[in-house]
């Protein structure tokens, strides 16, 4: 399978007046054609920043401090703004978390959907309305011509999210980055939206980078999973391996914090509970890169280690080995 996106040692930093902080550190992963890769982690773990860095849409105070983002063997980090604009929307597009704020409230839906077509001049302006109606029907609207003339405020959350998906797929991109596309929706609508994206992916061989904090969605829709914690990928595996054998304490913590319907009386475990348990091994809480114990400084392995075929874990081996300096 062709590798669509290959991220190598990506490092993103943000600066404030006082200091510069690392938001994404040495992140490496790839997305192959027609594959759904899930990037999972709690808020602030660096998932969205990773997606913004791929799109070249980091906020003004952010910068890519190192690494490569290759899309079909083209390093996006080195492209000019003009070259990046040709990639955005056309080859890589993005679905945002909250459609309510991601759609312009003062602009009709139809006009927003054809925006991408206009930038990339894929359709003459006269024909773009027909294309917009087609896109609206693809994402499940039975009355696309009505929706075309409506403002976002007139639509429900699920309808807005569908409109946002129509915008994202308008130029038939090869990679869609879905940044928590269902977080703002209720459970039944979540499933509809993800089924829609999955169906589109299967029909068009589009790759999806699914950013989420919901293991339920990951288990159903992703092919591979990358678990992010504090700006680093701490575990990566295919979805079956990860659910069968989660190794990193953070991954275990995330999984154990999901309520189980078959065992409702058990108190839910938090990520921190897991940290304390795992911390009994040499005092490590998610094994920071450098830590001291009893006056001795330890350096944990900083690279992802392959614990089984295709299953990578950071800072953790079965023997809990660290190098002593």
């Amino acid at each position, binding site marked *: 399978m062709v590798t669509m996106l290959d991220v190598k040692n990506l490092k993103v930093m943000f600066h404030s007046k006082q200091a510069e902080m690392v938001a994404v550190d040495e992140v490496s992963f790839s997305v192959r054609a027609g594959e759904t890769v899930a990037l999972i982690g709690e808020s602030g773990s660096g998932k969205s920043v990773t997606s913004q860095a791929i799109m070249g849409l980091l906020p003004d105070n952010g910068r890519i401090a190192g690494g490569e983002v290759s899309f079909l063997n083209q390093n996006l980090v080195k492209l000019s703004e003009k070259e990046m*604009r040709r990639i955005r*929307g056309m080859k890589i597009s993005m679905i945002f978390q909250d459609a309510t704020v991601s*759609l*312009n409230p003062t*602009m009709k839906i139809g006009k927003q959907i054809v925006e991408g077509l206009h930038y990339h001049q894929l359709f003459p302006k006269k024909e773009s309305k027909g294309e917009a109606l087609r896109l609206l029907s693809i994402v499940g609207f039975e009355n696309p011509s009505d929706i075309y003339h409506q403002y976002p405020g007139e639509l429900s959350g699920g309808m807005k999210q569908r409109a946002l998906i129509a*915008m994202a797929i308008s130029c038939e991109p090869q990679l869609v980055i879905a940044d928590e596309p269902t977080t703002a929706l209720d459970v039944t609508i979540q499933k509809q939206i993800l089924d829609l994206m999955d169906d589109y992916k299967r029909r068009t061989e589009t790759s999806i980078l699914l950013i989420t904090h919901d293991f339920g969605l990951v288990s159903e829709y992703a092919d591979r999973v990358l678990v992010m914690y504090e700006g680093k990928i701490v575990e990566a595996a295919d979805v079956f391996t990860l659910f069968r054998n989660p190794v990193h304490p953070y991954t275990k913590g995330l999984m154990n914090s999901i309520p189980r319907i078959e065992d409702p009386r058990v108190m839910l475990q938090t990520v921190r509970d897991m940290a304390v348990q795992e911390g009994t091994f040499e005092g490590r809480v998610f094994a920071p890169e450098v830590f001291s114990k009893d006056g001795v400084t330890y350096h944990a392995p900083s690279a992802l280690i392959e614990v089984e075929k295709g299953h990578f874990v950071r800072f953790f081996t079965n023997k809990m080995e660290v190098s002593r300096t």
Partner: protein
Amino acid sequence: MNVGIWKQPQFITGLIILVSLLVASFVYPYFFELPKETKYLYENGNLVDVAPFPPSLVPPFGTDVFGRNLLALIINGAKYTLLIAFGIAMVRVMLGAVLAVIYHHYHDKLRPLFEDIIESTLFIPPAILGYVFLSPLAVKYSQENSGFAEMVATQSLVLILMGVPPLVSVFSKDMAKITDKEHIVSTLSLGAKNRYVYFKHVLPEMASRFWLVIAQQIIQVLILLSHLGVLYIFIGGAATIIDGDLLSAHEVYVSLTGEWAGLIGSNYEAIYHTPHIVLIPLGFFFLAIFSMNLVINGIQNNLKWSDRGRGW
């Protein structure tokens, strides 16, 4: 602004008053002669009274110091006063918006310095700044006998430029808030150019705000014009007339356009003995400002309704 604005009673009331004043001002010369000077009032060959005449003698507002009907002068001057104020406000906002785009987009590092300068100039009364810039111009044009249009254009330009920097600062802050919104990032993620974002998203989103600021600027310009009038700075220039008798001849400055500030300025010295000559043009300034406030309230109410309707 959307069609909902026409359902705002305050907006419509304010607009009707202003439009009525303008229509009356344009129509007036077609039906009536412009008021003539009548300094002395004779009855049976005997001198009865000297201008300014009180409202009881020349209803409804009496006359100015030259015996001209004050109502006729006010109606005639309304078009100059209101249109000049509207024009200056309009150009200020347009120029402010264009410069704000450039300023917001390109001059991130200079922003704190610019903001400090702007904030410090806000403490200087605009009438003083206006007087400092416009009085040398008035002298120059009276000496060179330049054309009326050139005079109005130059004075308006000065008044426009005086008001633009604070607007650039205000608009650029508004633009910063809008460009931080997620729907702008969403647009950029589709490959939009910054120019497209400003023209299709940012400026249209600010359209209602622009109308609001234009209305606020009209009020500011009207207040500024009335202050400048007291300082004998009249838009369109002034004619100097020697008034009084042989023993007490003195210069009087009369506005060439007849705009309201000119009426206040040229009659200002009469405020002690015939205050109505100054108070009536001031009252019309008040009426115009009151009407603009109604318009502003209407726009603000409409903005609130629009926001709710769109689910913001």
